[in-house]
């Protein structure tokens, strides 16, 4: 008899009701829910999970301060950080050699050299701690994302809409626009023997970028549609070079060496088409004030039709990690301690199954509901729901507190779209829930709490720890693609931009897989484990 018959007191009728799919399952879920909430330790375990995450998260948010220090006025040392077209924080610092262009037109240059210099060993010093004479003590070196080329921008204000085609330190010719978009052109390093011709044409809101290896055969690299581009734009050569970071394999934590860098490019063969409003080039150190992510020094020289332009900084989205120059924080940073909550949830979830085996309760359970798959599903639903609530409570409280604490301590919290924020909050809860399902399934497979708890913790936590601490980046990326730890990507709020060359790594909030793909990996593990558990439950004697 199903519980239905007791409730309705009509055995004959309810037997049919119990046999139908939906109603029967609902009662099994309710039965499992009563089992769950009537063991005080399990409920406490879930509360502990939420509390631990919350407390540690808030602690973490309050102690993530690296740069500005807690000043009375809060973020006194942070300059106004420009915001790009899609609301994302950006770095927009470069040396701009410009002329106004009215209406449609085009600009063509030949780049004959790109030289980069790196500050000598100095850490990318936070504000106020940079070297006094930035260009002194710099040495020659390759900066992969040093950029020099031509750019069309709506204005010289930081954060303006733009499109640019450029040569780079080691990523060939690129067409980039509005900070986050990037397309590859001709590969290879440039030199006087192998120069590159670059061309930008404006046609209304559409800007097209072309490159050529000989000045005769041109290839379209990309087109950018910049909606609302004003009639008169600023156009001309530019150069910039980001904070240089070198990730060195250093044991016991990643060791990042770096500092500001400076790119100097020589361009000639400058051809203008269209209605150019000035006859002379004007040099501007865009964003190159004291608190800039670079040397703050830039210049240009003209001689015999050639322009030498030298600049430092970047035109790119602002990402977390050492390359950001400013003390930045992501909204999900305080949630990274979800690991600890996860361990508590995994313990409870595994015990929810294994405790029945230890005490023989499982036989009573199967006598009450002979459909074993249904029992497993009900257990998964109940534990996952409880875990989801615990995770949601933790994330919804932790994130806003974390954001405000980070701001108070002089950090710049990278803005994200509302939908992303919702994804981070709900995703964290879902992450905990799916981990709980995985634990239920592993518990049903192994039937021993010790084995189940260990397996799930090792599957989720150990790969992450090894990735952060001991594995080289390439290997760490694979570990975070293939193990359930990939699911933590659901918390990443700032996407990975290959054109930024971030070395943040998972500890800095950058996972190799996109949030949903990573979460999918974890779900896949849970589904496979659940299926295996269902098969084993049917086959094995209880």
């Amino acid at each position, binding site marked *: 008899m199903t519980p239905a018959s007791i409730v309705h007191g009509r055995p004959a009728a309810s037997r049919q009701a119990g046999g139908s799919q939906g109603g029967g399952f609902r009662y099994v879920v309710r039965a499992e829910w009563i089992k769950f909430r009537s063991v005080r330790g399990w409920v406490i375990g879930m509360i502990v999970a939420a509390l631990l995450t919350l407390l540690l998260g808030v602690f973490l948010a309050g102690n993530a301060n690296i740069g500005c220090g807690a000043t009375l006025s809060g973020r006194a040392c942070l300059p106004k950080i420009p915001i790009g077209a899609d609301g994302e924080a950006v770095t927009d610092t470069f040396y701009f050699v410009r002329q106004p262009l009215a209406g449609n037109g085009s600009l063509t240059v030949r780049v004959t050299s790109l030289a980069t210099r790196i500050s000598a060993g100095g850490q990318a010093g936070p504000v106020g701690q940079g070297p006094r004479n930035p260009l002194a003590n710099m040495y020659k070196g390759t900066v992969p994302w040093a950029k020099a080329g031509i750019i069309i921008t709506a204005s010289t204000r930081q954060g303006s809409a733009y499109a640019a085609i450029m040569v780079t330190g080691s990523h060939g010719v690129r067409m980039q626009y509005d900070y986050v978009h990037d397309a590859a052109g001709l590969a290879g390093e440039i030199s006087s023997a192998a120069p590159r011709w670059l061309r930008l044409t404006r046609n209304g809101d559409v800007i097209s970028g072309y490159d050529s290896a000989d000045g005769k055969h041109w290839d379209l690299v990309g087109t950018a549609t910049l909606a609302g581009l004003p009639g008169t734009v600023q156009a001309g050569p530019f150069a910039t070079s980001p904070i240089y970071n070198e990730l060195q*394999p250093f044991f016991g934590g990643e060791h990042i060496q770096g500092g500001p860098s400076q790119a100097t490019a020589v361009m000639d063969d400058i051809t203008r088409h269209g209605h150019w409003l000035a006859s002379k080039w004007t040099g501007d150190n865009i964003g190159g004030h004291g608190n800039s992510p670079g040397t703050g020094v830039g210049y240009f020289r003209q001689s015999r039709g050639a322009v030498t332009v030298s600049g430092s900084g970047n035109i790119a989205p602002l990402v977390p990690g050492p390359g950001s120059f400013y003390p930045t924080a992501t909204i999900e940073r305080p949630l990274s301690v979800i690991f600890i909550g996860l361990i508590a949830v995994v313990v409870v979830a595994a015990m929810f199954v294994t405790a029945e085996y230890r005490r023989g309760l499982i036989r009573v359970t199967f006598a009450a509901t002979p459909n074993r798959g249904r029992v497993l599903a009900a257990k998964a639903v109940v534990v996952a729901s409880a875990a989801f609530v615990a995770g949601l409570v933790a994330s919804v409280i932790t994130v806003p507190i974390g954001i405000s604490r980070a701001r108070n301590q002089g950090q710049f919290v990278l803005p994200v779209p509302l939908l992303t924020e919702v994804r981070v909050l709900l995703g964290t809860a879902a992450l905990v829930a799916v981990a709980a399902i995985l634990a239920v399934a592993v518990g049903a497979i192994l039937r021993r709490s010790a084995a189940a708890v260990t397996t799930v913790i090792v599957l989720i936590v*150990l790969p992450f720890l090894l990735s952060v*601490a001991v594995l080289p980046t390439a290997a760490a990326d694979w570990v975070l693609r293939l193990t359930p730890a990939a699911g933590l990507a659901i918390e990443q709020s700032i996407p990975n931009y290959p054109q930024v060359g971030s070395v943040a790594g998972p500890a800095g909030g950058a996972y190799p897989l996109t949030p949903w793909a990573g979460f999918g990996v974890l779900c896949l593990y849970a589904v496979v484990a659940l299926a295996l558990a269902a098969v084993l439950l049917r086959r094995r004697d209880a």
Partner: protein
Amino acid sequence: MTQALPGERPGPTRQAGDRPVPEPAGRRALPHPALTVSRDALRAEWLKLRTVSSSAWLLAGVVALTLGVGAAVMAANRCPAGTTCQVDTVKLSLTGIQAGQVVVAVLAVLAVTSEYSTGMIRTTLTAMPRRGMLLAAKSLLIAVLVLAAAVVAVGASMLAGWLILPDHGFTAARGFTGLSLADGPVLRATTGSVLYLGLIALLSLGIGTLVRDSAVAIGTALGLLYLFPVVEAFVSNPVWQRRLERYSPMAGLNIQATTGLKGLAIGPWAGLGVLAIWTAVALLAGGLVMALRDA
């Protein structure tokens, strides 16, 4: 069972036994000295441990996981010619300890909690009612077993490092520490790693005694071990980073460092000392709970 009732056969006192025959209580003179009993307890615990097959599997697991993960990490690390790598080859060879310690923790926790989960603890305490002594016997035994497994695991890992690392660019010619035990720091790192696993075992045993439930104890032990490095990975405040590194149980792993000692938040032996303090606290708390709480 019906043929010879125990009460009807001559008691062991009247038998010529090969070992000291048990005297019925009424005729007992003095109690055995504590030392003898302790040896009995050790032997009993040893028998218990080796008659459950999971112990052997777990010990083998310590070696396998340490070596497996260590070798995999070593295989993944390379230092191509012409680049500079600040890699401590000894520490790299012993990376597997971080995985192996999981199994050590499980083994040590289960040594206590499996008795509670089956109810056997009541039989055990009936046989050995001196709880402090029982915990001491268990601790000693687990420590010795884990140390033995750790010697094998560390030895195998060093051998793997010796085989793998030179091919990956980590040669002595380029200034990397050779993996010779004659070298003082190398010897410190290897013996220290063995001791580290022993201490992790005792820490977990203490937690198991404190908590009594396998799942909760394993969760607590692994949580305690991993909490600090995970938080440390995310904390960017150097002051807190240093604090977390100094006071975490895994600070004991600093014993593996052979180069860059100045950069460490805590010295090799001091780090192991921190772990020893954690272990002592856990064991003490466990012992106290065991003594005071009803079985």
